[in-house]
C-alpha cells in the first residue's frame, strides 16, 4: 500500500525551496513542522524563565533577581508555556497528523493555516519584547487580575494585543481543523472510525472557538478600563473586579482541557500500538472526551472559592468538579484495560505514555482535593496548587507531547530515533520532574504561598530539593533536542509501518510521507483500523 501511495504521489512532489517554502507554505506538513519547532523554542525560553525562578527559590532570601523581575518571570513563564509551547505543539501535531490520519490531501483552508502560524511569532515578539522595556514585562500573573494588572506599565497594551493575536491564531487553527475533519475524510472513514487523536482535536477545536473569544472580550475590557475610561472592573466606577475572575476562568478552565485533551488523544494512539490491542472502549472514550469538554464550562468557580461566592454557588462548582472526575476516570480505566493482557513492549513513546497515565492521575487527584470547597480554603494560592497543575501540564501534557514526538518522528523524518538515548531521556525526565514537583505538595500543605521570591526558612529544604530537580530536568531536555536533531539528520531507515502494532492510515504512507499526501482517496476498511 505504502509503495503504491508513494508512486502515486511522486509526480506531485514539486515542493518550493528556500525561505519561500516556509514563509508562504500552505502544506500541512511544513506548517506542522514550523509549529513544532516554534513550540520547542518557546519551551526552552519558558524553561529558562523557570530556571530563574528555581534559582531564586534555591534558598530563602533574595539572591539573584529583584521581586518585580521575579514576578515578571512567573507571569511570562506561564504565558509562554501555555500559549507558546503546549498549545502550538498540539496544533503542530494536528497539522501534521490529521490530514494523513483521515486520508485527506491537506487541511481544508491551507492559506488560513499559514496565517494562523505566522501570527504567533509576532504575538510572542510583542510579549517577550516587554521584558526589555522600561518598567519591565507584565508581572501581575498570567491570570491578569484587575486591579493589579492595571498597574502594569508600558508592557500592558503589548500584553493585551499579544493575547488577542494568539486568540485569533487559535480560532483560525480550530476552524481549519473542524472544516478538515467534517469535509475531507476519506471514503469509509466514518466518524466512529476516526482515530482518537482526531476526535480529541475536533472537540478541542470547539472548546477553543467557544472559550478564546471570551478571553479576548475580557482583555479588551481591561484595555478600555485602562485607556478609555470604562469601569467594567473598577468598583469606584460601578464595576466589579471579581467579574473579571468569572470571565477569565470561564475561559481558563476549558483552556486546561484545551491543553489536556490532545494529550489524551496522543496516549489513546500510543497505548494500543504498544499493547498490540485495540483501544478498550473506543466509543466510551469519545463520549468521555465530549463530556469532559462540556463539563469544563461549568466548573470555573472552583478557581474562586475564596472570593466569597454564595454557598450554593460553591456547592454547585464543587459537585460539578467532582463530576468531571467520572469521564476522566473512564479514560484512565480504558487505558489500563487496553494494556491488560496486551503483548506490551516498552519503547520510549510507551514509557512516556505509561508515565503520563500514572502522573496525570496524581495531578487529577490533587485537583480533586482542590475542588473540595472547604479544603481549598487551606490550599488556595499555595505551592500545592503549583504542584497540582504542573503534574497535569508537565508530566501530563508535556510528557504526552514528548511521547508523540518519539512515536511519530520516524514517520516525519523517515529515520528511527536513538532508542537508547530516548530511554535515558525518559528516565531522567521522569525522575527529575518528580523531584521537582512532588516536594511542592508538602510546601503547599505547610503553607508556602505561590508567586513569592522569598520565603520563611522552614520551607528551605524542600525548596532546595525542588530546585535541584528543576535544574536537572531542564538540563535533561537538552538531550531531547540532541535526539531529535540526530534523528532528522540520519539514522536507521524507518519502514512505512514503523511500529508493528500501529494501525491507521498514517502507517500506510511512506516514511517520510510524500509532500502531497493522499491525492487519491484511500479506501478505509474496518480491517485497516483494527487488530
Amino acid at each position: 500500500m505504502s509503495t503504491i501511495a508513494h508512486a502515486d504521489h511522486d509526480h506531485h512532489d514539486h515542493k518550493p525551496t528556500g525561505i519561500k517554502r516556509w514563509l508562504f507554505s500552505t502544506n500541512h506538513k511544513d506548517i506542522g513542522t514550523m509549529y513544532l519547532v516554534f513550540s520547542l523554542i518557546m519551551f526552552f525560553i519558558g524553561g529558562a524563565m523557570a530556571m530563574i525562578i528555581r534559582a531564586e527559590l534555591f534558598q530563602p532570601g533574595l539572591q539573584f533577581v529583584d521581586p518585580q523581575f521575579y514576578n515578571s518571570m512567573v507571569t511570562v513563564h506561564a504565558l509562554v508555556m501555555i500559549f507558546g509551547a503546549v498549545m502550538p505543539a498540539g496544533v503542530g501535531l494536528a497539522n501534521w497528523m490529521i490530514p494523513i490520519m483521515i486520508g485527506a490531501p491537506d487541511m481544508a483552508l491551507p492559506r488560513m493555516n499559514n496565517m494562523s502560524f505566522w501570527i504567533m511569532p509576532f504575538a510572542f515578539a510583542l510579549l517577550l519584547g516587554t521584558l526589555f522595556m522600561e518598567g519591565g514585562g507584565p508581572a501581575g500573573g498570567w491570570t491578569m487580575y484587575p486591579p493589579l494588572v492595571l498597574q502594569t506599565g508600558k508592557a500592558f497594551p503589548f500584553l493585551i494585543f499579544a493575547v488577542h493575536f494568539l486568540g485569533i491564531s487559535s480560532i483560525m487553527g480550530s476552524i481549519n481543523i473542524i472544516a478538515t475533519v467534517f469535509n475531507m475524510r476519506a471514503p469509509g472513514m466514518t466518524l466512529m472510525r476516526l482515530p482518537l487523536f482526531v476526535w480529541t482535536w475536533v472537540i478541542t477545536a470547539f472548546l477553543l472557538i467557544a472559550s478564546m473569544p471570551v478571553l479576548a472580550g475580557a482583555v479588551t475590557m481591561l484595555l478600555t478600563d485602562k485607556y478609555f475610561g470604562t469601569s467594567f472592573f473598577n468598583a469606584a466606577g460601578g464595576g466589579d473586579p471579581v467579574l473579571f475572575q468569572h470571565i477569565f476562568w470561564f475561559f481558563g478552565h476549558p483552556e486546561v482541557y484545551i491543553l489536556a485533551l490532545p494529550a489524551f488523544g496522543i496516549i489513546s494512539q500510543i497505548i494500543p500500538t504498544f499493547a498490540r490491542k485495540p483501544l478498550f472502549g473506543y466509543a466510551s472514550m469519545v463520549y468521555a472526551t465530549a463530556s469532559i469538554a462540556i463539563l469544563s464550562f461549568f466548573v470555573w468557580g472552583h478557581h474562586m472559592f475564596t472570593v466569597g461566592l454564595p454557598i450554593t454557588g460553591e456547592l454547585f462548582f464543587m459537585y460539578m468538579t467532582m463530576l468531571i472526575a467520572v469521564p476522566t476516570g473512564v479514560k484512565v480505566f480504558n487505558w489500563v484495560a487496553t494494556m491488560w493482557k496486551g503483548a506490551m513492549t516498552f519503547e520510549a513513546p510507551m514509557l512516556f505514555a505509561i508515565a503520563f497515565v500514572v502522573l496525570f492521575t496524581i495531578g487529577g487527584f490533587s485537583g480533586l482535593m482542590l475542588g473540595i470547597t472547604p479544603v481549598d480554603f487551606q490550599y488556595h494560592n499555595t505551592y500545592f496548587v503549583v504542584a497540582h497543575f504542573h503534574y497535569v501540564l508537565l508530566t501530563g501534557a508535556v510528557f504526552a507531547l514528548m511521547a508523540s514526538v518519539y512515536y511519530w518522528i520516524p514517520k516525519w523524518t523517515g529515520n528511527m530515533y536513538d532508542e537508547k538515548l530516548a530511554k535515558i531521556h525518559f528516565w531522567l525526565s521522569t525522575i527529575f520532574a518528580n523531584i521537582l514537583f512532588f516536594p511542592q505538595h508538602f510546601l503547599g500543605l505547610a503553607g508556602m504561598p505561590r508567586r513569592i521570591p522569598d520565603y520563611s526558612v522552614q520551607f528551605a529544604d524542600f525548596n532546595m530539593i525542588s530546585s535541584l530537580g528543576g535544574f536537572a530536568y531542564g538540563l535533561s531536555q537538552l538531550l531531547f533536542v540532541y535526539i531529535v536533531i540526530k534523528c532528522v539528520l540520519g539514522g536507521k531507515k524507518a519502514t512505512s509501518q514503523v511500529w508493528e502494532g500501529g494501525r491507521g492510515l498514517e502507517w500506510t504512507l511512506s516514511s517520510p510521507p510524500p509532500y502531497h499526501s493522499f491525492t487519491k482517496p484511500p479506501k478505509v476498511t474496518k480491517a485497516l483500523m483494527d487488530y
Partner: protein
Amino acid sequence: MAKKVFRNNNEIVKKRIKRLALFLGLFAFSLYAGFILSYMK
C-alpha cells in the same frame, strides 16, 4: 457521501468548507462582541 466530498478542488466541498468556516468565525466574533456588550451599562 464521503466519496463525493473527498476532493478539496470539488466546488461543492469548497463551498461547504467556506460556509462552515464563516459560520464558526461569526460565532466566535459574536461571542466576543456579545460578551463585551452584555456588560455595558
